[in-house]
């Protein structure tokens, strides 16, 4: 750690991991509710548990992004953070607001929460992923502005690297697009049209810029490859991302009342959306193969490569599977969508946050570069457990989705939704088992922060390093 103010990232990362654990617990509850329908009913109905699951995901990823920014921006800009105090303050504001919101979901019926927070003044609640009370949304905007100010001032008055600029563009885009969360017309079609400006243009647009810049930073640090090379790859990748991803929004405009030409525009451009992810995979492996040094933090490199591969599989391949409009006609809003959502979010965004945590946390906890061997080995186990179980979750959901699509949508004698759900329950059970394995991986992951923390730092094997 070269600058003291980078240490604020530790708060953010710790909170991110804690919320991640919460997200997984609620994921398991949801998975069980899929097969044991009355589980926790009526105390925690499915919609409440799902809100908690998805909102925790978004919040912990945002914590991760902010932590990543606070860690890497000073190092790239070669100066201390503009205001570490503001960063700490905003951390607590965000955490408390987030916690209150989650508690609100769990303790008050949703309609009561809507009434309590005055949703009728400016109705924004009750739309998927944007369930937060309007007041929370305003809080998010304030935190985002303060964060952007802090990061922006640091970047603009320091060394301007491509990593920093791309990160800043991504974060600014994130904040600006979130403003569409406040637009909620009575017209359902327009509501949906602009809802996607938040959701799609986040995850298939500006978030990929953030992902790219964090990945580039970690690769610069761990491989020692010339910054110039990595930066130009970064530009090419994010150019392809926006070139394909912006019009790619059209793949959400097939069946929601929007004109039918979107079936063409959306299919053509979203069919190309895997390209930037593929380039990212090639890029990550290429850079690691050309590495100039063997970084002691092996597990961070593993996370970085894992991110590239899983993002390509989850977002690229599983996205492509159902993005063409003739296919999507049958798969839209089925378990196929759920399968894609799980692997894409884990592969692209959960993993990039875990990558930067894995890289940065040892140094913030007093190591020179990396954790002890024992800790790293444990973290690698957690990597494989979580990643492989996520692959299985995705495969099981895909299986469920294919059957669902056939029985409910494609066959000559389509069956009702609930009948089909019972027929595919086996897949949901297997998904739940894979989810438990994922939780085990997460437990190991958290344990890796405590195991071997007294052991000496990992050293270069076989190389001519003096033994301590």
């Amino acid at each position, binding site marked *: 750690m070269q600058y003291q103010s980078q240490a604020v990232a530790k708060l953010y990362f710790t909170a991110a991991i804690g919320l991640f654990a919460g997200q997984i617990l609620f994921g398991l509850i949801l998975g069980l509710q899929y097969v044991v329908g009355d589980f926790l009913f009526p105390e925690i109905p499915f919609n409440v548990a799902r809100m908690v699951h998805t909102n925790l995901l978004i919040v912990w990823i945002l914590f991760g992004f902010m932590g990543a920014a606070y860690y890497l921006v000073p190092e790239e800009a070669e100066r201390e953070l503009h205001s570490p105090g503001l960063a700490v303050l905003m951390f607590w504001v965000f955490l408390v607001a987030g916690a209150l919101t989650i508690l609100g979901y769990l303790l008050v019926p949703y309609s009561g929460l809507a009434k309590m927070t005055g949703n009728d003044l400016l109705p924004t609640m009750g739309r998927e992923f944007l369930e937060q009370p309007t007041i929370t949304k305003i809080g998010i905007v304030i935190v985002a502005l303060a964060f952007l100010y802090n990061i922006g001032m640091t970047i603009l008055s320091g060394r301007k690297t491509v990593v920093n600029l791309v990160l800043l563009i991504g974060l600014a885009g994130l904040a600006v697009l979130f403003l569409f969360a406040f637009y909620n017309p009575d017209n359902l079609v327009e509501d949906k049209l602009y809802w996607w400006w938040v959701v799609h243009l986040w995850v298939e647009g500006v978030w990929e810029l953030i992902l790219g810049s964090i990945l580039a930073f970690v690769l610069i640090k761990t491989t020692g490859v010339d910054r110039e090379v990595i930066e130009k790859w970064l530009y*090419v990748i994010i150019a392809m991302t926006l*070139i*394909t991803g912006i019009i790619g929004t059209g793949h959400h405009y097939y069946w929601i009342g929007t*004109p*039918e*030409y979107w079936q*063409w525009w959306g299919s*053509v451009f979203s*069919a*190309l959306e895997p390209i930037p992810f593929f380039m990212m995979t090639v890029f990550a492996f290429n850079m690691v193969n050309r590495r100039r040094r063997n970084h002691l933090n092996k597990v961070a490199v593993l996370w970085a490569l894992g991110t590239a591969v899983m993002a390509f599989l989850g977002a690229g391949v599983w996205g492509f599977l159902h993005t063409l409009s003739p296919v999507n006609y049958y798969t839209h809003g089925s378990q196929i969508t759920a399968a894609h959502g799980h692997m894409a979010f884990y592969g692209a965004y959960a993993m990039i946050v875990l990558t930067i945590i894995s890289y940065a946390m040892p140094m913030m906890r007093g190591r020179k570069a990396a954790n002890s061997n024992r800790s790293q080995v444990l973290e690698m186990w957690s990597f494989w457990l979580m990643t492989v179980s996520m692959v299985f979750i995705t495969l099981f959901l895909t299986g469920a989705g294919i059957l669902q699509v056939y029985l409910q949508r494609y066959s000559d004698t389509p069956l009702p939704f609930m009948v089909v759900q019972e027929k595919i329950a086996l897949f949901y059970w297997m998904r739940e088992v894979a989810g438990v394995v994922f939780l085990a991986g997460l437990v190991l992951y958290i344990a890796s922060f405590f195991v071997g923390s007294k052991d000496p730092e990992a050293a270069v094997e076989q190389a001519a390093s003096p033994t301590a």
Partner: protein
Amino acid sequence: MTRGGSLPETSRYPPGDLAVWIFILAELAVFAIFFAAYAFTRMQHVALFDQYQATLDRNAALFNTLALVTASYFVVRAVTAIREGRTASARNRLWAAVGMGGLFLLVKGMEYAHHLGEGIRLSTNAFYMFYLSLTFFHFMHVILGILVLMVLAMRTAAGHYSAQSHTDIESGASYWHMVDLVWLILFPLVYVMH
């Protein structure tokens, strides 16, 4: 014609910056998919496509094709000029290309005005959806290409390029030729073939 040593050696990479070429490939991929989509959708609506294709102004399209090819020719000549270090000539030819591109926009714009005046939109029917999508997507490429050529012309005039250093011009030229190339397929496909 002797193949003297002065002929340019073959090189591994096309003229200009490779990043532009990667971009060109991506763009060509999009156009290829759109062309194929047009052709295969037409299979299902042959009569409809033929009927509405007849409403297009083929003379305007001819004029536009000639304008774009001529612009491309000026661009080629501009690259030749800058390779020989003839800056003023390169600049003039780039402006000439911009002018031809401008003519294209003007004529195409008049065609659009005509269609819009008749109340034709993307959602009117399958043929107009493809006609407007394809040509407008290309139209925007022409605008971008013109902007690129204008910047290049101004920078040439300001003395940024020389016989030794002119990769930007080659990059911009390659992009412009791509725009031309796409139109050379688009013109017969949408205006003539039935």
